[in-house]
């Protein structure tokens, strides 16, 4: 704590204010705060706050010059939440569904609403299948995945990587390399075991 002065909510005696009916006392007057803090109280009146009032109905203030937008072409076959009546008139077209991960994701969208945990777990499974498929495909390309450059981990040596010493988050930071490298190590282990078994079978 940098400020050791008494709190503004102290009661008039030594009983903490939570146990008595006293009104809180401000530690500094509005005038003192206004002198010390740039703009103090400028939005004191809720009417000056942009989110006031809630649910303010002002459809003519948005810049929209349509009641319902033109429909973007290409909605046929695009995945959508089954909580929607239709594919929204405008949608993203980045990274369309493909391959095994696409099938998993399509199942999540077609079968389960957003209210179902299965929807989200399937999407996460699709993400991992997508990542692994992509890693494997990268090794058949001229630009294979490189966990050293892609994780930016070398910045540990150039950006005061030791500066986290004494911080409580350093414990879980130690887990990051395990999470990144763990699946690769496990996959390599499985590959080595498989190769050994295959060799033993061939030899026998």
């Amino acid at each position, binding site marked *: 704590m940098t400020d050791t002065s008494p709190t503004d909510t102290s009661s008039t005696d030594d009983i903490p*204010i939570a146990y008595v009916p006293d009104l809180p006392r401000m530690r500094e007057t509005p005038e003192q705060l206004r002198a010390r803090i740039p*703009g103090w109280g400028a939005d004191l009146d809720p009417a*000056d706050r942009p*989110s006031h009032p809630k649910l303010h109905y*002002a459809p003519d203030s948005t810049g929209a010059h349509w009641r319902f937008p033109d429909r973007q072409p290409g909605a046929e076959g695009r995945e959508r939440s089954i909580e929607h009546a239709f594919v929204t*008139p405008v949608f993203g077209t980045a990274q369309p569904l493909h391959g095994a991960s696409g099938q998993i994701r399509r199942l999540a969208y077609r079968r389960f609403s957003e209210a179902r945990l299965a929807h989200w*777990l399937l999407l996460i499974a699709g993400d991992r299948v997508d990542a692994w498929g992509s890693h494997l495909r990268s090794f058949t390309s001229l630009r294979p995945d490189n966990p050293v450059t892609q994780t930016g981990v070398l910045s540990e040596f150039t*950006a005061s990587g030791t500066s986290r010493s004494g911080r*409580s988050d350093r*414990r879980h930071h130690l887990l990051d390399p395990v999470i990144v490298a763990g699946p690769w190590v496990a996959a390599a282990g499985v590959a080595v075991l498989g190769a050994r078994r295959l060799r033993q079978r061939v030899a026998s």
Partner: protein
Amino acid sequence: MRAMTYRGPYKLRVDEKDKPRIEHPNDAIVRVQLAAICGSDLHLYHGMMPDTRIGHTFGHEFIGVVDEVGSSVQHLEVGDRVMVPFNIFCGSCWFCARGLYSNCHNVNANATAVGGIYGYSHTTGGYDGGQAEYVRVPFADVGPTKIPEWMHDEDAVLLTDAAATGYFGAQLGEIAEGDTVVVLGAGPVGLIAAQSAWLMGAGRVIVVDHLAERLEKARTMAHAETLNYDEHDDIVVEMKKQTDFLGADVVIEAVGAEADGSCLQHVAGTKLKLQGGSPVALNWAIDGVRKGGTISVVGAYGPIPSAVKFGDALNKGLTLRMNQTPVKRQWPRMFEHVRNGHLTPRDMVTHRFPLEEISEAYHIFSAKLDGCIKPLILPSAS
């Protein structure tokens, strides 16, 4: 064009991608001049957001120059310099008509529980983001605004999310004159939330974090008192002591899914993905606010359930308010505050990286190395 692409949890690279094209009559293509990495981008980077596809380009904080417009665009012209809210919104659905731009129903086919966001997975619509040389901007007549001549580019880019979210977070707290406001998290959103709490008449503003450089920034930039939770056995007890055992009138939760403070919760939520994030800060907010008080949640969480202490929230009679920020609704008033020096977003920028160093930028920001509070990205085409 050059663009940051996701290669799996903790892995990114810069790829050559096709330049985006007009796909709807009200689209614009914007050449990005300046982008930022948001704390919530780290949730994608760490593989926490479902349906984050390989090859996705992140980035929902960016400004740039209009490069191309669709046939129905009336309010923008090629060459205009624009700031683009992180929300993609139509301006005409039931929700947009009532100012809930972050909850637009016409832009995200993949989910109804969240609106459209640039570069934030297919769960928010499947739009590539602005950590690239060019980006597709739907509803160009609704979202973007021309950058005022007097505004600094770094203020402009921060107003597209982090600063607007901090200001919105203070509003959700419904702060009254003299209130004691605790802000959990001294990142970019928390710092602006602390500045904003004063604008709304707070009597005390206390910022909680554990990173020394961020707490120092909270003291100098936001004139706040600070608490380092690493220095206290139980931060909730300390919050009670600081408020004469009453609890704070308002707590603003500006941390979200990757909260530290409990290694077990962090590992379960962030590393093992067993819940939709680590709810440590949210639980501290519930326990640290006074009975009958208000919690404002602007920290981001995933859609998977989290272990939140809802019983305490009920028993204490709390008001919980939250949303993704409807950014554009904040701007006219925020522009006044920035121009008057009441809000100083660019004071929190600590790092500027070229796009080609995106992997290092994410690692440094994620691991909080080198005193990093807010990193900006400079696309090479700019």
